[in-house]
């Protein structure tokens, strides 16, 4: 089960069981829901962008361990970042999950290196990232209705 153990590292299992920033964000000025039509999973990302920076970020949605964990880790990584920095972080992450090459300076991203052996799961690992990046492109919105 080496591939498998590689896929589900402790750090992923931990973020799956106790996802960080998993909540609705009433003060968000950007909200995007990304769907994975292949499986029906979805992920809603809430952002509050202030002065070109991600002031606050959270997520909701139902999805698998890979997706939950990657979105959880993403929220902790993107907080405080500019748009350009977020895009760079995503580019790095995409590289990890498609090539399997783990960056030494990013242990949390490196945990996802095993995904590349499971091509059908790459979409799971990037679902939340896609939602966040799309939200960053949008104009400010009124806060989400409760």
């Amino acid at each position, binding site marked *: 089960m080496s591939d498998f153990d590689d*896929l*589900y590292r402790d750090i992923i299992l931990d973020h799956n*069981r106790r996802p960080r920033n998993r909540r609705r964000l009433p003060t968000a000025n950007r909200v995007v829901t990304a769907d994975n039509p*292949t499986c*029906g999973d979805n992920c809603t990302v809430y952002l509050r962008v202030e002065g070109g920076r991600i002031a606050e970020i959270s997520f909701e949605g139902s999805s698998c*361990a*890979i997706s939950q964990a990657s979105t959880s880790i993403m929220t902790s990584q993107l907080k405080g970042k500019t748009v350009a920095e977020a895009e760079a972080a995503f580019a790095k992450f995409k590289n990890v999950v498609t090539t399997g090459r783990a960056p030494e300076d990013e242990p949390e991203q490196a945990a996802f290196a095993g995904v590349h052996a499971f091509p059908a*799961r790459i979409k799971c690992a990037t679902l939340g990232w896609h939602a966040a990046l799309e939200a960053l492109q949008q104009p400010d919105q009124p806060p989400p209705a409760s």
Partner: protein
Amino acid sequence: MPADFSLLRADFPVLHQTLAGGRPLVYLDNAATTHKPRAVIDALSRFYERDNSNVHRGLHALSMRATDSYGAARARVAKFINAADPAEIIFTRGTTEGVNLVAQSWCAANLKPGDVVLLTEMEHHSNLVPWQLAAHRVGATLRFVPIVGDNAELGLDLDALDRLLTPQVKIFAFTHISNTLGVTNNVADLCARARRVGALTLVDAAQSAGHEPLDVRALGCDFLVFSGHKMAGPTGIGVLYGRRALLDTLPPWQGGGGMIANVDWQESTWKPAPERFEAGTPNVADAIGLHAAMDYLDTLGRPAIAAHDGTLASCAAVALAEIPGIRLLGPRPGSPRAGLVSFALKDAHAHDVVTFADQDGIALRGGHHCNQPLMRKLGLPSTVRASFYLYNTEAEIVTLAASLRRIQKFFGGA
């Protein structure tokens, strides 16, 4: 005498492989597609090696052989489902194309604004989306027979069905066996209820055609559709059965070679069914492969296959019900069920379950099973499905149950 099913595994080359990690393949994804016996694979090769030719329009030796074989496949399907006439059998790519053909051709000719197309809440997207497209086009309405019962025993609400069956209902399309719940509907009864208000019926037999005997005349349905690949046949071939009198009133759906009587620059006339609905060169080889599949199934006997698959599914339901944190859908463990079990684990998402089981060599399916609105109603994002066919064994259920226990521990633990 029904064959000893465990001996049949020798007929299926795909089963005799070991996967990465040295584990034997435990294939439990039969509701998605089944494997093909040697007899079917060989029928395809034989056609291409001996008789390959286009059909219908040819007068040379190979073309006559191909035409005869294609016609024999059609006649074999008619016999397989006890249709009155081979002209009632239209070859399609599969269940989905059959539903689209009826939804587009029949609805265009017969549906008016205000008319109702009745479906059920347990339909596969393939027996739902085509009706959405067709109904929207003419301004007709879709209604749904609800599912009732607690999560462990879901079925159609027959009282609601009778209330929904108003004279506005022009056609009632429903599945024989739900690919998500494993529930079997009483087709003959549902058709009789529809007939009372003059509604036509279309039966989605995708999950039943390869598992149990079907008799379209005894069922009393007007249309019935299924897929070859879910009944030991090749991909790319399926069947639409339609009552002869009805087919002859339908306009063509696709135009092209083979379906015309006379073509002029601006106007054309059509051959009768089945040709009217088979434009272009048909999938000759795979129709012949399907013929071989029907022969294979009937040598075993479909009642024996149904008993085998149902028994395995019931065993699986009983074994799985013991696993902590599992939620089983469909008939209660212990009651009869079609050849599949659908379930959710409390701490593990369906995708993670399938990936884990795959590492144990077990092929499962996880997701919405092309049944998104039903999953939403059940409050489940997705389920895991184990589905059985004639080559599966009780030993494989033991392997499955052990794997699921480890999964539950892996994701639930700590």
